[in-house]
């Protein structure tokens, strides 16, 4: 009789543990779904922030083509202006609140040379800002990298495909 009672108690304890375990697992399941949703929202927000930051830069007066290459062009960066900006970058280093800004030519890409006053415009990449701080991975957008090109019939507008890459400071 005593033994039967003990088994009953054991059964009850086992049931309580099993049911608790089940609820914990179900709870974990819903928690993971919620975390997954949060993760997606965070990715989406980060994507929007990246877009805003890089687009803001590409269309800022210091970078954009303005009306130099015909009517107002979106995502157009004036290469001549950028070279001039690069020479005076110390005055602008805190203006955009970012750690690194780089432009890489995508097409046509002739060599891997970094742009200097000597090899411009026959170069492939230009580090406009390169702060010596811990930085996040680059966010980037494609841009039309435009400049005035000399030719026998006079200067003309030459636009190439490039990527504007921006990296924020990692404050964590």
């Amino acid at each position, binding site marked *: 009789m005593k033994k*039967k009672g003990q*088994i009953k108690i054991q*059964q009850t304890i*086992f*049931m309580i543990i*099993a049911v608790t*375990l*089940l609820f914990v*697992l*179900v709870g*974990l*399941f819903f928690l*993971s*779904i919620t*975390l*997954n949703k949060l993760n*997606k929202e965070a*990715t989406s927000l980060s*994507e929007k922030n*990246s*877009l805003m930051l890089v*687009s803001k830069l590409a269309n800022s007066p210091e970078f954009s083509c303005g009306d130099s290459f015909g009517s107002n*062009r*979106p*995502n*157009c960066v004036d290469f001549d202006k950028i070279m001039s900006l690069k020479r005076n970058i110390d005055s602008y280093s805190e203006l955009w609140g970012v750690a690194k800004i780089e432009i890489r030519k*995508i*097409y046509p*890409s002739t060599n891997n040379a970094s742009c200097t006053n000597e090899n411009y415009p026959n170069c492939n990449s230009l580090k406009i800002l390169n702060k010596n701080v811990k930085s996040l991975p680059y966010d*980037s*957008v*494609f*841009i*039309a990298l*435009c400049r005035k090109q000399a030719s026998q*019939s006079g200067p*003309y*507008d*030459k*636009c*190439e*495909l*490039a990527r504007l890459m921006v990296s924020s400071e990692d404050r964590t």
Partner: protein
Amino acid sequence: MINKKGQDEMVGFAIIIIIIGVIILIAIGFLVNTREENAIQDYEIESFIESSLQYTTDCQDSLGFISIRELIIECSNNNLCLGGNSSCYVLNYTLSRMIKKGWTVSPQSSIKAYEFFAMADNQSIIMFKEGNKTADYKSGIQSFARSGVEYSTSLNLYT
């Protein structure tokens, strides 16, 4: 006899709990580890098309070198470049190379295939593609109008 039956029930219940637990843990693992492997964002494709349209091609008309945007219009009118090349040939040649340089398209990369369309008033001007299409894709569209004709370009990247 009763004890034995109770023990059997307990073992059965334990097995059910273990099976449910394993299924839930696998589901949790799957959900938590589902990361956005597809790093391509829609805005990147949009910016690619927008910037590509401004690219200065090797095709010249009477006013000078023309952009991809102008080249699409020339191609829809079946015009030739000053050098004698077909505008559609130059368009195809330039854009396909730009896409290959801009995106890594291969069975091993995150982009398995691409498809590019240019249309004038919903009629296809040019279309080219590469790779094996999959069910998942991201796309970008840019439209512009000239002389009452609406042109649109779209790029689909299959991941």
